[in-house]
Structure formats: structure tokens, C-alpha cells
């Protein structure tokens, strides 16, 4: 679990670290702890998976990666983990997830976000996934986004009313 200081650090950094020579010191000042405390806690959050990575967060769309396809796959449940790992390792897949089906409208249990410069490139990559799955690809679709309606990046969810204050 995270405590109040972790929370304050998350809130101070989720929109990005300041682009100054000593960014952790700036965060530390804002949170009211020592700079080493900030890096120590960030390191711990990295270790326990709360932070996936730290670095430059590219806007793929603006960088010319306009083909951003959510490919969804119906694979046998007992193999979903194996295929999830295989597909997730592909360099053009940024996220691979197992999610529940909702039959009959939604038969897909494996999601893989495929990136490319355009739709044709994405479809070529999707074909590579299809080849990888072979007969276990019991159906797939690619959902292209046509509009970003909202994108605020991750925000720490508000605390429940009982404890929320700020």
C-alpha cells in the first residue's frame, strides 16, 4: 500500500518531472521531504510495479505513428497466457492483456495494441500475430481509433469521501 508521502509524490510527478537540473529536489521541496526520500520511494514504487518505467513519454500519434490498432483475439482460454506472453514480446506490441469475453457480442479474450506508421503497416503486423497463433486464432479484429475524445494520462483516483480532504 502507499502512504500519504507516496501519494504526494505521485501527485507531484504524474504530470511529469520538472525539466530542471535537480528535478527530485524540486519534487522534494513541494512534498516537504528530503530529495533522497523522494528517489528512495520512487525506486520502491518501481520495484513493486506501481511505476512501470520512468522516462520520456512519447506521443506516438504526433511522432507519426498514426496507425494505432487495438487487435483483439479469440484464443483458447487454456492457451491465453502462453500466447499473451508470446504476443507481448513482439516489438511492435506495446500492451498485451487478457480480458474477459462477453458472449455472444464479444468473443475476444486477448488484446494486443499494435503500432505502426499507418493502417497498412499495422495490418501487416497483425498478420504476423495471426501466423504466430495459427489455428488457435479462432477470430480476430482490429479496432482503429478514429478520434481521441479524452486523454488526461493517469491520474491518481480521488480518495473515498471519508478520507478525502485536499
Amino acid at each position, binding site marked *: 500500500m502507499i502512504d500519504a508521502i507516496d501519494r504526494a509524490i505521485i501527485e507531484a510527478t504524474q504530470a511529469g518531472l520538472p525539466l530542471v*537540473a535537480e528535478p527530485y529536489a524540486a519534487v522534494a521541496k513541494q512534498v516537504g521531504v528530503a530529495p533522497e526520500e523522494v528517489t528512495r520511494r520512487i525506486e520502491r514504487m518501481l520495484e513493486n510495479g506501481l511505476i512501470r*518505467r520512468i522516462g*520520456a513519454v512519447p506521443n506516438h500519434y504526433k511522432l507519426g505513428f498514426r496507425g494505432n490498432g487495438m487487435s483483439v483475439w479469440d484464443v483458447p482460454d487454456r492457451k491465453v497466457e502462453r500466447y499473451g506472453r508470446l504476443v507481448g514480446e513482439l516489438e511492435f506490441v506495446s*500492451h498485451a492483456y487478457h*480480458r474477459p469475453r462477453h458472449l455472444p457480442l464479444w468473443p475476444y479474450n486477448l488484446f494486443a495494441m499494435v503500432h505502426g506508421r*499507418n493502417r497498412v503497416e499495422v495490418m501487416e503486423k*497483425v498478420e504476423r500475430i495471426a501466423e504466430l497463433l495459427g489455428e488457435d486464432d479462432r477470430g480476430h479484429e482490429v479496432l*482503429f481509433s478514429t478520434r481521441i475524445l479524452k486523454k488526461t494520462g493517469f491520474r491518481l483516483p480521488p480518495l473515498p469521501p471519508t478520507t478525502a480532504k485536499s
Partner: protein
Amino acid sequence: MATPMPLRKRYLRKPSLEPPPLTALEKRLLDTWQKGFPLAPRPYAEIARKLGVSEALVLTILEKLREQGLISRVGPVFAPRRVGASTLAAMAVPEEELERVAALVNSYEEVNHNYEREHHFNLWFVVTAADEEKLRQVLEELEARTGYSVMDLPLEAQYHIDLGFPLWC
């Protein structure tokens, strides 16, 4: 399975949408530093040292990339699921109702991503709440207020932690 691409032409090379040209150094910075940002007192100086340039130049480039919107930020990428509860939700909304429903969905601070996608399920958004109960509440409220059902697709497993991916390699 063949997937039709009716809008394919629209997405092929629009000159006006070409990304701004980047220098070799900028590309290298972007490709190499999507992860592993140093936890040292002067992280930009460390990056600069590895790239063989000055700290000031690294800061200038990052500032420029951020201003141009080519990077959204430099910092930690949090795993939403580890904090509170979250799910991927999808709705099938008739075209003429899409604006109204999307505006309603977006009005929730629990919604941080919302994409329109080409599919029967055309509205896809991520809902993150403090806990499971609050999450349920938001989904139920959305159904009641929009009049359309919400397909709830919570994460069961994740196979690839997003560590960035090669942009130019």
C-alpha cells in the same frame, strides 16, 4: 480473418500530418530514454554524459519536444491497476448519439482515456476509481444516464509491461 478497411485511404500519408523532422540526437534521446531515467540528483546530466552532450542541451531538447507535443512528459509511468480499481469499458452507441454520450462519459474525472473506434462497440474508455465499489457505481451511473449498456472488460492478466518501444530502429 480479413478485416475491411473502408477508411484506409484517409489515413495514408497526409502531408499536413507529417511529424516535425527530428535530429539524430533527438531521435536517440527519445529511443533510449523511454525507460531507465536515472534516480540520481542530476538525472539530465547523467543522460547528457551518456549521449556525449551537455546537460543544458538535454534539457533544451526535452523542453522543445514537450512544447511540440512530441513527448507528453518526462517522468514516471504509473500502473493504474495498482492504485485503486480500474477497467476498460466499451459502449455501442448510434452515431447520432455519440457526441452526447461521449461528453457525458468524459465529464467523469474517473475516465482518463476515451477513444472513438471503428466498430459496433465504438466508444472505448478506461475508468479508474478509488475502489471496486466506486468503479461499479460509475459504470452503473453511466448506463443509467446514457441509456446504453457498458461492457466491462477488467484486466485479468497483463503480459507486457510497457517499457516503451523502438521508434526508429
